[in-house]
């Protein structure tokens, strides 16, 4: 651990002014990240995030609120949808042109932090307070013991059902407290048949790590071992793909080309958002965005099979993080803005649960009465589920896991690989990426 840090220190000094001063601050002598905040002359910060239209609007509102407190700040938002976000971030970081404030995901955190692209936020503790944030949540933003990112909130993998479609086609949903994967298949089949194919029962997954984690954890396994190796047993992964393949073949989920097209599109164009699928998977806090796009009644339901297993598949995932570029020219000012996002009631009132149910206890408590129905449903869902310990943070090098997962899902759905072959190939490729990092 200390080896990694000292190498990083050396590199950061070479790399840029911002990082160098951050390290100086680390030594206690006070540098940029800990320096007084400039409230006189103009400061321009670049702020990047991914998300849906609903999130863009809320974030723009928060930026306005912040600017009314700090009139000399200009904050340029750069927002994208998930699919384009990471290519763009890698390119700007490589070009030494990274945005100052970066919305970060668990999959990429180690890859960026271990390579020295992120500021150790501990150096900015003058401006960025973390006292109100639960320590278990804070821990998820640490890499090698340093706080490179602070979670915006918590989220959990869930299923979503479109109540209106269920009613329209006269289908009875089984008791989702105790339902099984078999029940999901059966009810999905009923919907597909009842609608004559106009509405498909289940939106296929297989493109996000949440679904894999849940599947493995329900059977007592995990994707990675604690030391960051791929630990998923091939037989269980094969079972995961076999189930998806069976759904598609039976018409319970859409034909593969449709599934793949929707997986590549933005959230607003998914089956759940366009009311062409009755049941789908989502992170619980996405409910608000799905509901906004769908316009129909959507409800969060538990993951199938949870009541039947000894180890819950569900877990609290940090929905996303705030982090600051190690090369930011204004780390102190960036820290002030992040502090505003995390700790100010004004920002909390606008953001609500869009970036997860806030990890800040004070904000969360004050928020409860202000939540809209869907936001409240998302918060309630977190309390209602039984969770196990969170999976290990994605190891450095494995940030491409979703692309690898997606390709193998495609190969299974189009029957170019058997589930067993896909499982073996997936494990091998992912491990190779980790080893190469």
């Amino acid at each position: 651990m200390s080896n990694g840090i000292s190498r990083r220190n050396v590199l950061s000094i070479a790399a840029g002014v911002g990082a160098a001063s951050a390290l100086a601050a680390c030594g206690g002598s006070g540098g940029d990240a800990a320096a007084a905040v400039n409230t006189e002359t103009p400061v321009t910060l670049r702020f990047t995030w991914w998300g849906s239209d609903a999130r863009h609007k809320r974030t723009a509102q928060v930026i306005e609120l912040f600017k009314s407190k700090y009139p000399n700040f200009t904050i340029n938002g750069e927002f994208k949808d998930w699919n384009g976000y990471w290519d763009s971030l890698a390119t700007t970081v490589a070009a030494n042109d990274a945005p100052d404030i970066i919305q970060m995901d668990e999959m990429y955190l180690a890859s960026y932090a271990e390579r020295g692209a992120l500021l150790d936020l501990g150096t900015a503790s003058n401006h960025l307070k973390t006292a109100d944030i639960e320590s278990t949540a804070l821990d998820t933003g640490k890499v090698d013991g340093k706080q490179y990112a602070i979670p915006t909130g918590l989220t959990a993998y869930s299923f979503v059902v479109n109540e209106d479609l269920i009613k329209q086609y006269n289908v009875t949903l089984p008791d989702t407290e105790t339902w099984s994967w078999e029940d999901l298949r059966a009810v999905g089949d009923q919907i597909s048949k009842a609608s004559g194919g106009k509405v498909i029962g289940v939106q296929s997954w297989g493109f996000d790590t949440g679904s894999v984690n849940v599947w493995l954890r329900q059977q007592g396994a995990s994707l990675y071992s604690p030391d960051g190796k791929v630990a998923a047993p091939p037989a269980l992964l094969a079972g995961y793909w076999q189930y998806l393949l069976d759904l598609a073949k039976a018409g319970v989920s859409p034909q593969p080309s449709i599934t793949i097209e929707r997986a590549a599109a933005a959230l607003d164009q998914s089956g759940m958002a366009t009311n062409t699928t009755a049941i789908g998977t989502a992170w619980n806090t996405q409910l608000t965005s799905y509901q906004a796009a769908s316009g129909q009644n959507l409800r969060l339901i538990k993951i199938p099979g949870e009541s039947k297993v000894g180890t819950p598949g569900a877990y609290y995932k940090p929905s996303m993080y705030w982090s600051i570029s190690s090369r930011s020219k204004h780390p102190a000012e960036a820290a002030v803005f992040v502090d505003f996002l995390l700790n100010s009631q004004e920002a909390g009132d606008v953001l609500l649960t869009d970036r997860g149910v806030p990890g800040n206890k004070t904000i969360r408590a004050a928020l409860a009465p202000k939540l809209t129905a869907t936001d409240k449903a998302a918060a309630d869902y977190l309390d209602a589920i039984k969770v196990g310990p969170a999976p290990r943070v994605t190891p450095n090098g494995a940030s491409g896991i979703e692309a690898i997962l997606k390709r193998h899902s495609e190969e299974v759905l189009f029957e170019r690989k058997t589930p067993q072959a896909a499982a073996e190939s997936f494990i091998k490729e992912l491990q190779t990426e980790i080893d190469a990092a």
Partner: protein
Amino acid sequence: MSALGELQRLGTSKGGPPRKRDNKAAFLFLLPWFAGLLLITAGPIVASLALSFTDYNLIQPPEFNGLDNINRMFSDERLHRSLGVTFIYVFVSVPLQLIAALGLAILLDRGLRGLAFYRSAFYLPSLLGSSVAIAVLWRQIFGAEGLLNQILGIFGIAGKGWISDPDTALSTLIVLNVWTFGAPMVIFLAGLRQIPVMYYEAASVDGASRWTQFRKITVPLLSPIIFFNLVLQIIHAFQSFTQAFVVSGGTGGPSDSTLFYTLYLYERGFSRFDMGYASALAWLLLIIIAGFTAINFWAAKRWVFYDD
């Protein structure tokens, strides 16, 4: 030869003061181009050659790793996959595109009324073809709810997501490339105008059919132009990127069926922080393109006919 002699004479001549001033002006005029070449082209080329022998994750300084990147190419299954996809794309789409270009050029050469309009109309796609806008349009046309499926729906044929099915995704990109036949077509048209009409007249008098005229007059006399277009379009097709990137959302999917070489290179470099290997891949592409161009020139001796 005479021009060359003149140049040599200029080069070796003593050169009085006025000539020196001429050279200075020439160099001065060349400077912007030369600076651009050095900074924007030559610099990165040299840098990427150096990076080819390193492990470079974009954020930390590169580390020399000898021939590791080259060794890795032999066992990299996705590289082999991307080569396969690229070869299919190049060797299917380029001939089809040139045939379409030549066919239309011959039709337009018949002295159609409103030729200028048709020429522009057919040329337009090649200006737009490699743009993001057209790639997005392609997504719409060949999507599950796209234009093509709506047309098929009129005839009661059930469509599918053409670009999200690995069996058809590459074909839609080949169609896109063929559609941009305008650029070679305009060059063919210019070439056709160079062929003296009297050859055809003489052939008609001798009773040669149109097909014979095409084979015996048009093709041989146009062969330098065909050759030129062939070389250019092959090089161009090997470097295709935008269409596949936009249509597949940057993944080369579904199931790597549109994983163009350049797309894989991009993925290694920018999505997987693997710039050293990506640089080596760029050089491999250069070697491949140079190889095919050399083969083209070698083969040209057998079929390209120069009139002079």
